[in-house]
């Protein structure tokens, strides 16, 4: 049996791969409570990585898609609406499978993209890993969901704000940067917080679907499932992973709450928008 310190050293970074800690995962009767606690905690590295990057990249894309859907030009608004419909109307779980099986079909040596003066070689083999391919699917998914939220916010921007911007002689990009974008963000922020929470929770699906966990380095729920398979006892690993996710959720709520305060700082206290925690995890 390992002591707690030993299993901390062996497993706290194990999710990064075989070279970081013990080569093999604990098996069968050798599993201690500390093993479960630390190995599942190390899996959180990937949850944070996937969720953090997907939200950061998806945010920019979502603003673009939302503005696109709001556009008067049907050549722009139709494709944006179709993109949102496809990714919101189908299960994320199926999207993972679909994109993974599409990525494996790409040629392994990479695709050469001629740009005239240089030839870029797109690294396609990376797309079959969860860290790149899975992240890409998550980005597309969160882009669609957040774009719908931002689109709804764009529609509810007070008319007075827009008229005031016009009265100041603002137009085009200045009006967007100074008036439309901040108002949209402020209106959408409470639901965007929930979106960030759902996305963090759906990172648990990455390794459960098609993407393989190379060298047994997976995210927290992958390890929880591993332990339940090994010990046939669901009453330790699953509550542990649930507790970690509750902590992660509280962290996100805190972080986004600070931003919410910043966005609402100019408003009288009773008109400020509150963040209500309304979790609905599946997508």
């Amino acid at each position, binding site marked *: 049996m390992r002591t707690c310190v030993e299993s901390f050293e062996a497993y706290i970074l194990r999710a990064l791969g075989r070279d970081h800690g013990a080569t093999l995962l604990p098996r069968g009767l050798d*599993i201690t409570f500390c093993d479960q606690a630390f190995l599942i905690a190390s899996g959180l590295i990937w949850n944070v990585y996937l969720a953090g990057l997907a939200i950061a990249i998806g945010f920019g894309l979502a603003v673009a898609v939302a503005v696109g859907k709001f556009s008067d030009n049907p050549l722009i608004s139709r494709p944006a609406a179709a993109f949102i419909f496809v990714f919101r109307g*189908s299960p994320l779980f199926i999207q993972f499978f*679909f994109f993974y099986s599409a990525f494996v079909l790409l040629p392994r040596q990479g695709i050469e993209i001629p740009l005239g003066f240089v030839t870029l070689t797109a690294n396609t083999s990376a797309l079959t890993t969860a860290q790149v391919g899975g992240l890409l699917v998550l980005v597309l998914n969160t882009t669609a969901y957040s774009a719908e939220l931002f689109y709804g916010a764009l529609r509810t921007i007070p008319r007075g704000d827009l008229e005031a911007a016009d009265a100041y002689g603002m137009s085009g990009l200045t009006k967007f940067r100074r008036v439309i974008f901040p108002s949209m963000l402020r209106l959408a922020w409470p639901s965007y917080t929930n979106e960030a929470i759902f996305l963090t929770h759906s990172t648990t699906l990455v390794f459960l679907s098609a993407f393989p966990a190379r060298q047994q380095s997976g995210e927290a729920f992958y390890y929880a499932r591993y332990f339940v398979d*090994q010990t046939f006892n669901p009453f330790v690993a699953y509550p542990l992973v649930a507790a970690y996710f509750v902590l992660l959720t509280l962290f996100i709520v805190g972080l986004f709450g600070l931003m919410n305060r910043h966005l609402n700082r100019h408003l009288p206290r009773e008109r400020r928008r509150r963040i209500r925690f309304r979790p609905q995890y599946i997508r």
Partner: protein
Amino acid sequence: MFAFCTDPASLPQWQWFACYLTTATHFAFYRSFLMVMLLLAITAPVALAMGLVGALAVRSRIWPVSWLGKGYVNIVRGVPDIVFFMFVPIALGQGIEWVFHHIQCPDWDQPIRQGNDFIVCREAKVPPVGAPAWVRNVYAFAMAVVAFSLVFGAFAANTLHGAMQAVPRAQIETAEAYGMTRGQAFRRIIMPQMWVYALPGLSNIWQILIKATPLLFLLGLQDAVYWARELGGQKTSLYTYPHPDWRVWYFLVLLCFYLLLTWGSERVFGRINARLSRGQATAAGERMRRAAG
């Protein structure tokens, strides 16, 4: 299926596909779509009923009941649902076996948990030892239904509770003025009117429920995802119908199936919403009244 399917290797393109798409395994694939529909058809009413019970419990004036209701709603909603889908079937299965074990083998002297094994006596096994495959499948399916109903019941309870609160206070006061009891007012005033307030939330939950059905695969059932992986994988020339890796096409079919399902139900909910808004004291009801008058 067809008479010309005896030697697929020598068939022209379209006949080959006609034969390929009508093999026995493909019919299992098509049936798995029916399983998804069946799961939806069973889970939705059960979850709605659980939601109603949960919402009533939250409203209850007896504190242990309301405490229980609030606990149920908040615990299920506060924990990632995937954890619940994986946890409930195993935990419930072990729970059932544990109870049967204590009823049927009272003089068993060994502990049930021995190291990493969960050991109950032979009579307490559920489904029974040597049960046919379909019994095992039905049992696994029933477990899935329980897990789905528990999670979605909590979602529905929250929505229904909100809807009950949203019925205008004045209407309930009027009912009280007519001398109705709390129960009567609930049955005659709140119950018929709350649905219009609950519908947006319920339609949202329904969409989420649809999108959660592929998770059946994780419970080890042979659902559409399972068959798409089986059938789509590369088949060497040892098979009757050899083909390269076609998984991407099978998953495309699944994707379209779900898109169709969510799109269709969105339209149905739109219709129901219009129907329920008739004569209601809401903006939509007001607009309908103006249009009619």
